[in-house]
């Protein structure tokens, strides 16, 4: 059932040209150089340290590594991270 719904959603984005992040609960990530990263639609913080931020997503996780991380703002669905971002990686996406 869940897979069917997933398929239906993908079909909607493809044929109706609806933005994928809205329909499929995907994160929207905006980066400004390596200084800022702005993530919408996350589901919580799994780990945070000076050099690493691990966010829970609807599916899987997002791992951001770098240096001197500061979370400028945290809201229930948005995060603004500041620092020197070296790597953005998806983990465990089915």
């Amino acid at each position: 059932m869940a897979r069917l719904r997933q398929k239906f959603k993908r079909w909607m984005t493809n044929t109706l040209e609806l933005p994928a992040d809205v329909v499929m609960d995907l994160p929207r990530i905006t980066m400004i150089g390596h200084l800022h990263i702005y993530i919408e639609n996350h589901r919580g913080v799994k780990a945070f340290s000076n050099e690493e931020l691990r966010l829970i997503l609807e599916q899987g996780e997002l791992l951001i590594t770098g240096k001197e991380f500061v979370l400028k703002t945290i809201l229930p669905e948005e995060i603004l991270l500041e620092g020197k971002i070296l790597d953005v990686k998806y983990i465990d996406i089915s």
Partner: protein
Amino acid sequence: MTKIWTKYLRGTVKITVEGEHAEKFLNYCLNNDIQIWEVSRKEHLVLNMYTDDALKIRVPLRQMGCKFKVMTRRGAPFIVQRMISRSGFVAGLGIFLVLVFLLSNMVWNIEVTGADPKTEHHLRKVINEMGIKKGKLLFRLPDPREIQYLATEKMDEVTWIGVTLEGTTFHFKVVQKELPEKIESLGPQNLIAKKKAFVTNMFVEQGQVKVERNQLVQKGELLVSGNIGKDKNVRTVAAKGKVFGEVWYRTDVSVPLKTTFNTLTGNHNDKHFVSLFGWNVPVWGFGKVEYKEFEVMEDVKNFRMLKWELPISYIKKGIHESESVSREYTAKKAVEIAKQMADEEMESHLEEDASIKSGKILHHTIDNGKVNVSMYYKVIENIAEEQPIVGGD
């Protein structure tokens, strides 16, 4: 910008959270609508949050096995707290400001210029009675224009008093009446007639009388001569005395039959305002005025601080009910009134020792709703005028 202000007003704290499961705390904040910002982590988690939120997270933190320490506090609540703990200082500051305010609104000096010592003394006494003294608060005194009016009214020996308020000093500029000095004309003189009259009475101190009682004299005619003596013993002296004569005057007065004028009924309603930067904020006296016709009298009092006028003033608006009254005279009544008015007018023109012998209505006409009355007066007055004898031999 607004965010900075709300942050300032609510007060923010910077705290450190010690413990292994700091992420749990972050998620807890996300799920419970606790705002945090500027989160960083080196040894411990350092973050900023609102003061009131910081009190709420105590218990959950303990459950998560974390400790928190406050590093810095910022914002209005802490300043208020500090002010309360130093209430003596704050009270002193408040008292100081109040004192400066009161002293700035006090009469400190009263200066009088242009008056001789006697007049000055009188003036000081008059204004003292009006309540203008050193140390009085300015906003409880009438305004300078009113003082000027009252002081000028009360003092007979001055023509005009100018009152200005400069800061905390009242300046009174006095223009004194210059009473003409009595001319002691000791030189030889005659007395001549001022106007055409019928001589009725004479009181001559010195000089030779040239006219008789019941004689008609023309203007400029010699009444009492300064030349006395006969033949070779002629001397010239200053003729002195009073010659009373009957003089005729004609006065025209017109009285409208119908007049409308406004009078105040005595009902009034006061409204009080405090004006801030030109904004009038009502303080007392609300509600609509139910008078059909009214007059507004405004009384503005300004406040000062040291040298400066504050943008705050107190305004009292007195709303007085007025009423237009129309008055109508019958022709007979109008004539009567006109006669009265003419009498008064005549009286006011006469000198002290003159008297009205009789007044008669010459004729009266009514046109354009007005009664025009011509009065004819017989007045007995001093008709003597001094005329120096020039080139006397």
